[in-house]
């Protein structure tokens, strides 16, 4: 991966005539769950401003509430207190301005790949032919051209997750939410998809929030890494990543930064 080419692509991606992107704002957000009558605090007083087209990666041990945080932004859960704002407005549930990819691909097993992607366009009220045309374009974008009429069961894990990403991109949301999207994939497939997601984020820049427990993945993607503490989930540290896009995983800067983030977790166990 050559840095000069990457900078060019970055320039081209940003110089497109596109809407300016959308910000995400978390304002003193707290959330707890009731489990058998006991209150379990999951998130405490989280405040975070995510700039338009920023790629923010949230890392933390399991149980730190990072997935819950993403679900609050998606509008799938409600905050106990505090506010979640998209483009300055309080959210009221899920919206077409946000697309989400879950850890399990969650494709509907009775629909083909293109029907699954096309399903995301149903709320837009466009014709079926148009939905399928967009779906085919999205599948091509995630490298699944030729697999339009495959059922999810006929796809490998990586391919199914690509289709799920295609579905999240189908209505071109300004905000893309990724909940450990590569967590269930084997290491090589994960590397490949990481590169492709990085490409997508350059070619079609969106505000992206990705949740992961993979530190290398965080350093690979993030403009800023949000490190979280567990029980209750709080933001421990925010680490800016000033590396060019299309990062070289073996570069000295990359390795140093990965070590720095890793230290946040290793020191913890002393």
């Amino acid at each position, binding site marked *: 991966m050559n840095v000069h080419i990457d900078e060019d692509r970055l320039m081209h991606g940003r110089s497109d005539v596109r809407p300016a992107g959308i910000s995400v704002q978390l304002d003193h957000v707290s959330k707890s769950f009731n489990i058998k009558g006991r209150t379990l605090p999951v998130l405490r007083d989280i405040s975070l401003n995510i700039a338009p087209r920023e790629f923010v990666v949230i890392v933390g041990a399991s149980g730190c509430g990072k997935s819950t945080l993403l679900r609050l932004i*998606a509008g*799938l859960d409600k905050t106990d207190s505090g506010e979640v704002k998209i483009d300055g407005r309080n959210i009221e*549930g*899920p*919206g*077409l301005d946000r697309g*989400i990819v*879950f850890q*399990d691909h*969650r494709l*509907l*097993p*009775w629909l083909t790949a293109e029907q699954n992607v096309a*399903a*995301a366009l*149903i*709320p837009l009220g466009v014709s079926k032919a148009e939905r399928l045309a967009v779906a085919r374009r999205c599948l091509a974008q995630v490298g699944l051209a030729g697999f339009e009429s495959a*059922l999810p*069961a*006929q796809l490998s894990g990586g391919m199914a997750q690509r289709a799920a990403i295609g579905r999240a991109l189908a209505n071109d949301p300004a905000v893309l939410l990724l909940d450990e999207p590569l967590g269930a994939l084997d290491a090589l497939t994960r590397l490949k998809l990481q590169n492709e997601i990085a490409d997508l984020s350059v070619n079609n820049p969106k505000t992206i929030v990705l949740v992961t427990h993979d530190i290398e993945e965080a350093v690979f993607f993030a403009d800023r890494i949000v490190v979280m503490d567990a029980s209750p989930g709080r933001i421990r540290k925010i680490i800016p990543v000033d590396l060019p896009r299309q990062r070289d995983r073996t570069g000295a800067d990359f390795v140093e930064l990965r070590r720095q983030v890793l230290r946040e977790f290793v020191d913890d166990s002393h």
Partner: protein
Amino acid sequence: MGARRLSLPRGIVLPVILLAVWEIAAHAAKSGGVLIAPIEQVVGSAVAMAVSGTLWTDTGFTVARVTVGFIGGAAGGLLFGSLIGTSRIADRLTSPSFHAVRQVPLTGWIPLAALLFGIGEGAKLSLIALAAFYPVALNTAEGLAGVPHGYRELGRALNFGGFTAWWRILLPAAAPQIFTGLKHGLAFAWIAAIAAELMLTSGSGLGTTIESGASLARLDIVMVGICLIGACGYIMAVGAERIEARVLRWREEGR
């Protein structure tokens, strides 16, 4: 898997044996004074009924009744099952009554149906519809309640409204169990049709055929009716399995 169970070659052995036993018994019984119509006499009556046309009209009437009654009952079951399978309030309000009323066997409703609708088509169709309604409603409700939480969440994440989520996600996800309900419903509708025709004797129908054959002590006619009922029921069951296998083809791919 269902289609295999219904496949012919090896399955033909038992009927052949039974027919042989029947034939031997019929001839043996003649000397004993017991009335069993031998196969040739039954076949002869069937041919005569086919030539006169009563065989076709009787079969046609029963099949038509089952079709109309089943469609009505299954549609109602699908809607009611969807209601109690998706709305907790509707479930709490109606479930106790539904399960209590369900305990009344179908034949228990026949006198009431006769009083309400007379012995004509209204009574028969409502009994058939009722028979199809229960299993479809029950399986639809259970199927919908058992749809994985992740699929419901996906519906919300994709901004689907209530109807779109029901039509595009919940119903297809519950389809395997709904089909179980539809198959049971069809079988019960068939049983209900024969029972209704036997007890509310008016017009044509296979139940009426049996009933009038019995009153004339014509065992051959009774046997023709029974064989036709069995054959039609079998064809319907096989047809339902075929349709199910086609609609649920996606389930096979993952195996």
